[in-house]
């Protein structure tokens, strides 16, 4: 099993009231940025990655967001390049570069090749469509989001694998001379993993490309459905999918005692957590989703937390459509209309703490108390890749490193044992897509439905 360390690298000292007033981390005015804090945090995050390697993690996962204190990794490749040099053996896993927002995918191919070379082949690139707000920030036309994603991906792969020089004349990108000198260390190119938050189109695309799919904290029930969709697609593509094709990301915080963990772990809800990642109008710019996806989203909106969309926010969007005459009880809408104050909004946010834990949106405790929960996820999903996501919010470096140390010393070894027991293999142990499907046979079972029955029901309105 490949276990990754992940943090959003948040700007942990943003005034919480500003986030709540703004109803979104994205778009908090940058006058609240302090260069001293920024300088310190970027370096702390690099140090934390090195520490995670020392504590036994197999990979460091990075991500990218723009214009938000939720995640300072606006240019993830810069951090990846530094990690390529200052770490020794961990995989540097990028989940992922927002391809549709790039104006120059050939340069992306060059940057990633350099990182792969500096790290002597430890890079795992990954691609995302980018949240809606990334399209707005980068002025990437949302109506062409899927097309831009596909073509940028094809440009990068061609630049890495097709002998140059050659010409690229696509719908969105034109290059007259593709011949990057520095090619990736790994052949034919670095392994690619794709993170997602439940879009079936992405799952099918991954299965067709034999790229592992990483569920970003998605509800177990819907994740199971996606795993099965991947497995069915794989079968049609002529191969058998297994645990090597899947990964899962889980937000977690541990401390020495239960009391301390519970006290500190509340930080994960800071500013409203992922539910306040963005506002509906920034999450769903025109054309960002296919018509089918928009309809589906309206039905099961609550599972899009990593894009900052919750059922409450969808309601807000619909209220706006209905002329703003809705006088319901949702706090966001009432906050916007000035009917509730910040204190009540905060009480509502922090009031979800226990429910968020009950539903596994976040796992908090001691190494001993978090393990059964992690085990349950592993039993249900059999993920070959497991990302442990450091809690958000105003936690100090020491508190974060304590959590990382306890995870490394006590939780990781236990997880590896469980993985062995469950027969979970990762993409480095078994090449994804390497097992041909034998026609007329059933595909492997990818999930454990009995274990799913034991899983707690998630309150979908809560997002951490």
């Amino acid at each position: 099993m490949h276990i990754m360390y992940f943090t959003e690298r948040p700007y942990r000292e943003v005034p919480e009231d500003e986030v709540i007033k703004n109803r979104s981390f994205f778009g908090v005015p940058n006058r609240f940025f302090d260069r001293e804090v920024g300088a310190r945090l970027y370096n702390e995050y690099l140090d934390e990655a090195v520490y995670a390697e020392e504590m036994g993690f197999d990979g460091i996962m990075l991500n990218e967001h723009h214009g938000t204190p939720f995640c300072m990794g606006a240019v993830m490749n810069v951090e990846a390049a530094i990690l390529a040099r200052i770490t020794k053996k961990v995989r540097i896993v990028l989940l992922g570069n927002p391809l549709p927002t790039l104006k120059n995918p050939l340069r992306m191919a060059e940057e990633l090749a350099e990182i792969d070379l500096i790290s002597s082949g430890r890079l795992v690139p990954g691609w995302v469509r980018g949240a809606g707000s990334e399209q707005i920030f980068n002025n990437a036309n949302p109506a062409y989001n899927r097309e831009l994603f596909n073509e940028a991906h094809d440009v990068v792969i061609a630049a890495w694998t097709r002998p140059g020089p050659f010409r690229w004349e696509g719908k969105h990108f034109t290059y007259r001379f593709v011949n990057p000198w520095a090619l990736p260390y790994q052949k034919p190119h670095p392994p690619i993993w794709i993170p997602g938050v439940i879009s079936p189109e992405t799952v099918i695309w991954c299965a067709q490309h034999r790229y592992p799919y990483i569920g970003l904290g998605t509800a177990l029930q819907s994740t199971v459905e996606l795993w099965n969709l991947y497995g069915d697609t794989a079968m049609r593509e002529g191969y058998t999918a297994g645990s090597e094709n899947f990964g899962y990301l889980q937000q977690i915080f541990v401390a020495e005692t239960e009391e301390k963990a519970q006290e500190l772990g509340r930080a994960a809800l800071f500013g409203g957590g992922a539910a306040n990642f963005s506002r509906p109008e920034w999450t769903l710019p025109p054309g960002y989703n296919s018509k089918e996806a928009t309809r589906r989203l309206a039905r099961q909106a609550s599972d899009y937390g990593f894009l900052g969309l919750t059922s409450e926010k969808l309601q807000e969007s619909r209220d706006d459509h209905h002329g703003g005459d809705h006088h319901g009880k949702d706090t966001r809408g009432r906050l916007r209309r000035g009917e509730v104050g910040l204190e009540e909004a905060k009480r509502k946010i922090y009031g979800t703490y226990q429910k968020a834990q009950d539903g596994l949106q976040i796992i908090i405790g001691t190494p001993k108390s978090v393990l059964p929960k992690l085990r349950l996820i592993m039993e249900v999903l059999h993920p070959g890749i497991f990302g442990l996501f450091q809690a958000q919010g105003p936690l100090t470096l020491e508190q974060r490193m304590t959590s990382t140390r306890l995870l490394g010393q006590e939780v990781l070894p236990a997880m590896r044992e469980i993985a062995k027991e469950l027969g979970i293999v990762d993409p480095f142990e078994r090449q994804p897509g390497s097992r041909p499907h034998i026609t007329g046979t059933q595909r492997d079972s990818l999930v454990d439905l009995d274990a799913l029955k034991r899983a707690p029901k998630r309150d979908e309105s809560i997002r951490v």
Partner: protein
Amino acid sequence: MAGDCSEEITHLAGTDLAIIKGGQGKPLLVLHEEMGHPGWLNWHAALARERTVLIPIQPGFGKSRRVEAIRNVHELGLFYSWMLRDMNLAQVDVIGFSLGGWVAAEMAAANPRQFRKMVLVAPLGIKPPEGEIFDIFVVTQRTPLNLSVYDPENTPEFAGLYGGQRTPEQFEAFEDARTEIARIAWEPILHNQSLPHFLQGVSGLPTQIVWGREDALVPVSAAQAYKEALCNTETRLKIFDHCGHRPEIEKSAEFIALIKDFLA
């Protein structure tokens, strides 16, 4: 006034195009705005007494399927020119609203002889020298509609725009419209940097520009920019006070009189 028009789908300009048609007499081409055709309003009915009002539904909106080859507003103009040829409409009078006004201006720049007279109502297309075009792509869909009228309380037709019913179907229709406009006019934001230059090449096309002084979507400063760009053709400018982006419903009577007089 509903029921005075009908919608038909006709194969034109290489696609199946929905066209709303009403009235009788000499044809009047109406190019609708970026949210779609807002419904058959008083001004439509008033003009339809003397004119056949023809409102093609822009590809990608309503029952008109998207035409992938249209990738910007200039190309949308090429599409409508082709449509006019297929309909044997030469030297037609045209009135365009907001995005539709921008399309009419692009068509005039390409070939002013397509039109006899042109009316531009608060057109997009030119970057206002003062203020900014409202960015309709970063707000929820009703925001621009709510901003489009200066005094909704005293604009009886406002509540009836787009059927008045805020149904899920209308929600989806607005999403389709926004998607199509994003596709063709995302960048530069709802204008064409070259349009002012090419409008100087327009001659022999009497043009009436209409604007509301309190337009919150396309600042009124763009009215003067349009007038200056159309310097080689006879151009009149009417700015209504206490009026937003929809003079046709906010100053309905004056608007109808103005247009009737201009097109006479």
